[in-house]
């Protein structure tokens, strides 16, 4: 092990790549973790699996969802560019990027 999964993932994010791992049988693995896996880059297309609107006091409502990527892995993310209340389960989405503290953060837009 020469680099942490979090560092490899963040490096991909800096290149605007959504990275995931693949096990010996070719099955996708996400969240990235320590183990006998190789890295792959997603095409960034997926479907909203579950959705909520987080309403913190004194803040704008924020979207939080789980997205099933077409390669067969699931991740937490947010859909941007659409009112959070209007995001529906089953919507097709594609990856977009927003600024993060360290590296860009993968979010999603509705795939028209």
């Amino acid at each position, binding site marked *: 092990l020469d680099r942490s999964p979090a560092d490899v993932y*963040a490096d991909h994010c800096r290149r605007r790549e959504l990275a995931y791992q693949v096990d010996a049988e070719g099955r996708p693995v*996400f969240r990235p973790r320590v183990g006998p896996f190789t890295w792959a880059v997603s095409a960034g297309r997926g479907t909203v699996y*579950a959705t*909520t609107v987080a*309403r*913190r006091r004194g803040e704008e409502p924020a979207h*939080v969802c*789980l997205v099933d990527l077409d390669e067969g892995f*699931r991740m*937490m993310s947010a859909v941007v560019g659409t009112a959070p209340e209007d995001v529906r389960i089953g919507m097709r989405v594609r990856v977009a990027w927003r600024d993060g503290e360290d590296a860009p953060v993968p979010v999603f837009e509705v795939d028209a």
Partner: protein
Amino acid sequence: VTPQIAIAGAAEAQVGEALPGLSAADVMAQAARAALDDAGLTPAAVDGLFAASTQLPWASVNLGEDLGITPRYTDSTQIGGSSPLAHLEHARAAIAAGLCDVALIAYGSTQRSVGRSSASVQEIDPWEAPYRPMLPVAAYALAASRHMHEYGTTPEQLAWVAVSARRWARRNPRAWSRDELTVSEVLSAPRVCDPLGVRDCCLVTDGGGALVVTSLDRARTLPQPPVVVLGTGEAHSHRHISSMPDLTTTAAVQSGARAFAQAGLTPADVQCCQLYDAFTITPILFLEDLGFCAKGDGGPFVEGGRIAPGGDLPVNTNGGGLSYAHPGMYGLLLLVEAVRQIREEGRDVVLAHGNGGVLSSQCTALLGSEAAAG
């Protein structure tokens, strides 16, 4: 043959708002001493300690110091709100293995007094934190959204879980929330994480509880009627909600099946359920996963008061985490109410089910009267 074990003592302490200055360990110690009194035992009789608290990573060690017990078996397993039910299973195994004779399972929290954020260690997860999920509620909201999508579960059905809990709480003078609550009030309450509003979320209180567990033979020599542990099961499926395999099905499928198989019982034998109600979606999931109805039928099952007083299946008979109390983790109070149902309400078979984390850990216990134990 595994020797039968029984709960010989049960008690709660500082439920609601703890006396100023009490620590989580103080609350736990008070409950533990009360449970020992209830069992007619002193700390000197205890040789197994089991405890967990978000505020006390070494909980069983605190318990030993405060009660002056040097145990020969100790277990601070922390798997969230279901921990005390796991402790019950672990105590059963330890007693069966001859590793201890009298197990004390205890819990204490001052979550309300110190504030929710300082009562728990914040784990920063690089794959969820950037999206700032309001955990744990966002995780349960995501599960509710998926259940609604797949099975047509409605906000009204979720609200019925809160209303049913409140109807039980209104009969319990010790419950934290006792005002009348209607479905429309639940629905019009401020949203926290859609589709869950504030009345879909459990209370934030202080409180603690404790159980004394020993062999059924020994329990028979003690003052209280033994509450027999008929079956137990534990399982966990994920730590993070984004790693949960299917948001509509929990590991209660496995924990429940194991508990029922051990007890030789089916859901039809259960007279009363204590189902961890952190949020209104959870009893719906557990009714399905434990086999009280088919997957997807939990919403219709709870509609109209079927789990409320006067309904077919009494659920969360003290008012639950939603209306009775929820001191950080609710598992021990849920077991105390299950014990009370057998001792005081004449039930023979009661199911207690605990949930931990973000639908992560699931533990089931079937408790019974001596008559049910055969």
